[in-house]
């Protein structure tokens, strides 16, 4: 899976969770940019990503992530 494919998959999840069909995210998108991206929705995003890509984040791994780009990079690591 290319980074682009991964990114598109993650974007679809963002669109579903926040119910905005035309939402566009970028590497530098962070919780500051999306109003509803609170800690509870963060959990929902992570759960959906884990299901979709069949990966599991370790406890604490996600706390440190500052934006979407960092999240995707971590996913690439996991999928290797």
């Amino acid at each position, binding site marked *: 899976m290319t980074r682009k494919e991964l990114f598109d998959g993650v974007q679809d999840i963002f669109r*579903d969770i926040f*119910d905005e069909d035309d939402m566009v995210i970028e590497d530098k998108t962070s919780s500051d940019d999306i109003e509803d991206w609170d*800690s509870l929705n963060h959990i*929902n995003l992570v*759960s*959906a990503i884990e*299901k*979709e890509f069949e990966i599991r984040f370790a*406890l604490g791994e996600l706390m440190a992530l500052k934006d979407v780009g960092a999240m995707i990079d971590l996913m690439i690591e996991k999928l290797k």
Partner: protein
Amino acid sequence: MQHLEHPLDVNKILRKKKSIKKYLLLQDDLIEKNIAILGGSTTSELKNILEIFLLKNGIKPKFYESEYNKYYEDALFGSDELDKFNPDIIYIHTTNQNIIKYPESKDTSEDVAMLLSNEMQRYKSIWNSLSKFDCAIIQNNFDYTKDRSLGNLDCYDIHGKTYFINKLNDEFSLNARKIKNLYINDINYLSSYIGLRYWFDPSLWYQAKYAISMESIPELAFNIGKITSSIFGKSKKCLVLDLDNTCWGGVIGDDGLDRIHIGTETAISESYTAFQKYVKELKNRGVTLAVCSKNDFENAKEGFSHPESILKFDDFTSFKANWNPKNHNILDIAKSINIGVDSLVFIDDNPVERDIVLSQVPSVSVPDVGSDVVEFIAHIDRNGYFEPISIADDDINRNQYYKDNKKRANKQATFKSYDEFLVSLDMTAEIKSFSSVYLDRITQLTNKTNQFNLTTKRYTTGEIDTITLSDEYIKVYGKLTDKYGSNGLIAISIGRIENRACHIDLWLMSCRVLKRDMEFAMLDELVSKCKDQDVSEIIGYYYKSSKNSMVSDLYEKFGFNLLERNDEDSVWKLDITNYEIKNKFIGVKND
């Protein structure tokens, strides 16, 4: 909204909850209810998903949600907000995470009894204090902990957590039997159904204090939805069953009483017996039963006289076995029992029948049970259609809901006519002269088809082989495919040519494709082949048997003229010089 029924599409529900909610809010006649959630752990996502399941059941909830883990404080000391909210239902979401103190290994049995009593006292005071709202209280019992340091001993040594939890759950049950308005949400069962290792996600607990895993939340909400529906009197009352390949294996009209599968002789028989046993249990605790089957009444009734049949004819309050469309029969059933059609659940192995009932009478519950009887019980059981709040008082809230339901307009597009339904099936048929690959299937059909069979003439493989090769015969088979897939080879006509006349020795069709106009497509093809061979008239014979009364007027329907009648047998004639094509709905591939 199939993904909100068993089997739940958990991932879709979690991801698409917002758009699902929007869609469900478009329904008419939602009733508004106030639901207070008092949580012993995080309930945010549970609330969101519960909202979806309540909306699906016609309830539009307004929520009160206690602050994190403030269930006890809210219940005991109250809050202005909760008082003003005036809940219709209070749901207490506690789990084993809320158990304050388990026994320790040094504890005596008196110590353990004391711990148990302390734990119970907390809940008793919660229920007691909440009784001022005079509303339903839905209370979780306890799930087991994933770890059990005493191993198997954990369930019977007094120091075990499993043992302790079982004791607590017994106490909860005891109290729920005594306290009016207290209902148990059995998460002990639910967690074992899901599997403890999927039920609890330690990572999610540490990160967000969710006491159950994300993927379990829809199942939990689904379960609470069932109890809530039942409390508001929305449980179903009547189970409507198809017969052939639903109540027993095989086709009673064709196979006969001694050949249908029921009993314990074979695996297939046992699976139908298990289904009948489950249905009988439902009946014994107050669910009304009805039959809706395409069959001759006498044949259908005979099926339940089978010595191994668990269900008997007398178990059914309404028994519709005839050849009318099932959507009509369903309405008749509701009328004859005098209940709303939305109190009916319809089980049929045939997707076409399910489709016509669901599309024409959308308020009937028609689970997508598939065609394997092994799955049927789960579809009835897991969907909680007949969830009772108590066995004796089942009917308490029903009447009010009958009234509400009458106002309900059709929410789904319905077909305006049966013709429109046939068009929607997108049917194509292959109608061709016999070929050797179908020899066995054709022979088999001539020997087992009893109902839609004009002469009931039986053939051997050798005879069919001879006919296939002979020019003196017009012999066609029909295969029908619709949007649900192929029905296989289901129709056969054999005509013998003599002096420019075609005598129909055999005309049969499988009841699987009844009322699909397949017989017209077959006639069109037969006529066309007759013309090719310079035949000018077709002679049809109807020989009465104990099973084939449904086709006694077939030739009349085809526009044949009666030549003679002997008792119940008859001979018919059709001049084909000015024959007009009769089939309008099936696309035909021919030779």
